[in-house]
């Protein structure tokens, strides 16, 4: 009796245990399925989003709602604007004098505000021309703003996917120019296929030519799309909008190279005498460098030495051509005393883009944190001083932000080439001091006489 009861209990426990094990296995399998294709992109995106918005983890949802609301508002506004244009315009074909249908008017509105402008359909009376002018004034900025926002969104998605599924730790950079060029060529090729085989049945070269002329917004109108049915109209519209976006991406990626060529071989000079606002006071870049060097317990000569070391650091870390402008700028700041003769004063200082500055800042900071032991204290302080100088030089003309900082006024020797206004101001202040002193002395005399 007792022996049989014991056996039954043991068998029951074993069955329960096996059931639990099976449940755990199933739950582990269901958990493991998610990370394989969805969890990692989500984490990468969330980290990137937090870094961009500078918000804590629990605020991600609200910030995401704000960002997505902005994108949706732009797109919906554009669609409503095009529909509004369809209602307002009264158009006719230029060659034949027929009335344009609703879909033709829609295509006209899109090609107008994207500045393609075929001209096969055009406003023919004065009222149409006035409406067209007013429509373009508001429509063109709206169109390009929407296209730019959507392009940024697509580029971000591509970057997140690329960073998720690549083993290397890829930097978050935009498209390279050859990637954009390949996209542009592929888009022209797809358009050539569409317009040679399906919609208008042109020759292949003519179709390619038409696609290229359309998405670069030249838009001659010697060939113009004549789609049939709603679906073909939608395809043409989507093709033109994505084509314009691709072209904008291409030119945006080209612009960095173009600006690099523009400043190549060009020496950034005269930055010594450039004036900036710092601590509610106007001073020159030279004074700023001296001040920050003293504050961090270093000297301008030490900063120059660290810059030479930073050449190697930046070559290893960044390997980008844009950093050369930054290095030249810093070098000219420190070597500005050697410039002769001194050039007239300039109000502006050229600096590389803020994104490059941020990359440089992040690189220096990461380098400092990773190699904490091998860097002596003087060099570290000098690097921090350089970061502070760059931070202040990046916003030379913004006065309100620095006004909030309550920095104590430190007397500096002003440069010899003061303007007349400042010299008059100094003389006036001296006169004021003399008069104030006189008032005080007269008060004392009065008191003495009373006594």
């Amino acid at each position, binding site marked *: 009796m007792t022996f049989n009861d014991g056996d039954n209990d043991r068998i029951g426990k074993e069955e329960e245990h096996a059931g639990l094990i099976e449940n755990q296995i199933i739950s582990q399998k269901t958990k493991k399925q998610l990370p394989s294709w969805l969890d990692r992109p989500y984490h990468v995106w969330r980290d990137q989003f937090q870094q961009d918005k500078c918000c804590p983890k629990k605020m991600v949802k609200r910030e995401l709602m704000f960002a997505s609301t902005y994108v949706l508002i732009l797109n919906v506004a554009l669609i409503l604007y095009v529909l509004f244009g369809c209602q307002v315009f009264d158009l006719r074909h*230029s060659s034949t004098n027929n009335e344009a249908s609703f879909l033709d008017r829609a295509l006209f509105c899109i090609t*107008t505000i994207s*500045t*393609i*402008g*075929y*001209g096969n359909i*055009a406003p023919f009376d*004065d009222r149409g*021309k*006035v409406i*067209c*002018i007013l429509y*373009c004034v508001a429509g*063109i900025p709206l169109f390009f703003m929407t296209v730019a926002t959507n392009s940024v969104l697509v580029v971000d998605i591509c970057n997140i996917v690329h960073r998720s599924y690549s083993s290397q730790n890829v930097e978050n950079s935009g498209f390279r120019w050859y990637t954009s060029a390949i996209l542009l060529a592929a888009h022209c090729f797809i358009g050539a296929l569409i317009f040679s085989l399906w919609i208008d049945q042109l020759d292949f*070269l*003519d179709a*390619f*030519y038409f696609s*290229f*002329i359309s998405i*670069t*917004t*030249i*838009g*001659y*109108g*010697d060939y113009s799309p004549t789609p049939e049915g709603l679906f073909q109209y939608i395809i043409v519209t989507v093709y033109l909008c994505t084509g314009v976006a691709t072209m904008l991406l291409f*030119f945006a990626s*080209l*612009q960095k190279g*173009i600006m690099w*060529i*523009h400043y*190549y*071989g*060009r020496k950034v000079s005269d930055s010594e005498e450039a004036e900036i*606002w710092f601590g509610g006071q*106007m001073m020159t870049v030279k004074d700023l460098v001296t001040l920050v060097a003293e504050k961090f317990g270093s000297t301008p000569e030490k900063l120059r030495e660290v810059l030479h070391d930073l050449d190697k650091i930046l070559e290893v870390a960044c390997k980008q051509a844009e950093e050369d402008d930054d290095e030249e700028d810093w070098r000219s700041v420190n070597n500005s005393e050697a410039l002769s003769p001194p050039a007239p004063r300039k109000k502006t200082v050229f600096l590389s883009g803020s994104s490059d500055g941020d990359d440089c800042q992040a690189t220096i900071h990461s380098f400092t944190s990773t190699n904490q032991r091998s860097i002596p204290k003087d060099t570290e302080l000098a690097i921090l001083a350089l970061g502070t100088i760059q931070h202040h030089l990046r916003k030379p*003309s*913004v*006065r*309100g*932000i620095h006004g909030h900082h309550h920095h104590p006024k430190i007397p500096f020797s002003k440069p010899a080439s003061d303007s007349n*206004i400042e010299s*008059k*101001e100094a003389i*006036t*202040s001296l*006169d*004021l001091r003399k*008069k*104030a002193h*006189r*008032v005080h002395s*007269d*008060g004392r*005399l*009065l008191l003495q*006489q009373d006594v």
Partner: protein
Amino acid sequence: MGRRHRRSKVTRVVNLVKKIIAFFFSHIGLCALVVGYALLGAVIFKAVEGPHEAEIQELVKSAREKAVDVVWNATFRVNRLDSKQWKKTVLDEVKRFKTVCMLSIRKGYDGKEYGKQAQWTFTGAFLYSLTVITTIGYGNTAAKTYIGKTLTMLYAIIGIPLMLLFLTNIGDVMAKIFRFLYAQSIRLKFRLILWHKKRKAAKIRRANSLVSRLTRGHRVKADSSVDSFGLGAGADVEDLLTARVEMEQLEVRETAAAQLESMTVPISLVVFTMLGYLGVGTTIFKVWEGWTFLESFYFCFISLTTIGFGDKFPSTSVSNTDEAQEKLVITSIYLLFGMALLAMCFNLAQEEVQNKTRWIADKFRSKEDDDD
């Protein structure tokens, strides 16, 4: 020795290349580069499309002459005997001529007379090149041959970024000049205000001297206590008034310095400048082409926003006369300068909008800080 010499030579070559690039992408070099590129395009397209146009026109002309000749011969020889034969001959010849015309139109015939009117003159090709690289693209003149179309695509690939670079730099330079002129006008305004303040100070100083003279005269009659009181009061009031006027002047100077420092041109001035330029263009084309005011304004607006429908176009009856060529050149200059002015206006407006946006963002941030 040889190694050092080679290194110095290489360095010299590198420096020379640097100087060349720096010149071509400086402001003057960039203007020259854009104009040179447009002239190069004019030469190329004239060389490629001009013979094609002449060929087509000559083909149509010879076909027409042949048709007329055949019809005349038929009339002269066949008309007496058989009317049906005559009709058949004439209809066949007219049909053949129609076929030649249709083929020519497909190849790009546009109805211009051979030797008298031509699209692809040098200035016409120049305007075409300009409309390609500025993405205006009227379409009245367009490439017809395969070589022309291919060259147009290659030309646009290189020319459009070059044009964007040109507009960016020239827009920056023109924005600086505009900002400088605006700063000068503000400085002049504050100088006038200072002059008024100084004149007011002179009046106050004259009143002070009068008061002190009265006090000095009054000192002779009064006793010692009243004398000391009057002297102190007069001196104190005089100095305080003078100090107040000087403080007002200093405040005006600081206000001027602050406004000059945060130098952003207001958007209304930018818009007014752009409308002024459109007005000038409207006047020019109205006088030339006999268009109405609205049509001229419409053409200028559609051109400068690079839409370029092409329904309105100057010198639509293009001819080889010097006057028409001159109009094309002036149109090209108007478009090029107009694009640069538009880029300048965008730069200034963008700067103003950025400052406003930053101000709003700072206000919201400070509000959030106050809430926290």
